[in-house]
């Protein structure tokens, strides 16, 4: 079975400081990994995805994530937080080649940005 663990339920940063949201996944087949963001009362928006190409993935709004197979991690980072980044972030996994297209979500990390 596939799973992801988001290590922090809540992260608080000051505006202009770096953001680190941590995610570990369980490995069965070759994973595809995604980060989605959910702003209050909005749908889930795709930030970035990893599908076995470059291990450092760049997404929208200055976010990036690095796939580290040895650590089974896919942490999300941003050099400088903006107030508009305050939202809930979900690490998501699916497995190619397993015949299953369902996404498996982590519990989410709520990011607060302090002015």
């Amino acid at each position, binding site marked *: 079975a596939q799973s992801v663990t988001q290590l922090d339920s809540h992260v608080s940063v000051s505006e202009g400081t770096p953001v680190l949201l941590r995610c570990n996944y369980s490995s069965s087949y070759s994973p595809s990994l995604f980060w989605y963001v959910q702003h209050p009362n*909005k*749908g*889930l928006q795709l930030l970035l995805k990893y599908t076995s190409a470059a291990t450092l993935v760049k997404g929208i709004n200055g976010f990036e994530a690095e796939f580290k197979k040895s650590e089974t991690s896919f942490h999300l980072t941003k050099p400088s937080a903006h107030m508009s980044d305050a939202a809930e972030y979900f690490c998501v996994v699916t497995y190619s080649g397993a015949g299953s*297209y369902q996404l498996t*979500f982590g*519990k989410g990390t709520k990011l607060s940005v302090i002015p």
Partner: protein
Amino acid sequence: EPEVTQTPSHQVTQMGQEVILRCVPISNHLYFYWYRQILGQKVEFLVSFYNNEISEKSEIFDDQFSVERPDGSNFTLKIRSTKLEDSAMYFCASSLAGGPYEQYFGPGTRLTVT
């Protein structure tokens, strides 16, 4: 930019009633999904749908649930006889292809069963 839409945004129903949640996927997408999120819990996969049939479903998706693509644009989730524990946010998603492709989500329908 094309987006997935869902109606209604909020549905309140009484236990035992039938509800239909509606979604309009992105027009050229071929795969459609329903997920739900009970308050305070993870987003959970319910069902995927391709070529007018269910391609995969989770244990949650029992006989009380059904999905349909009644025309070329809508994708619906029906709960036949709602229970209190069906209260959740229901998300529809669509993707251009199956496999490790990004799924695009709608804003969700909040279902409250009283």
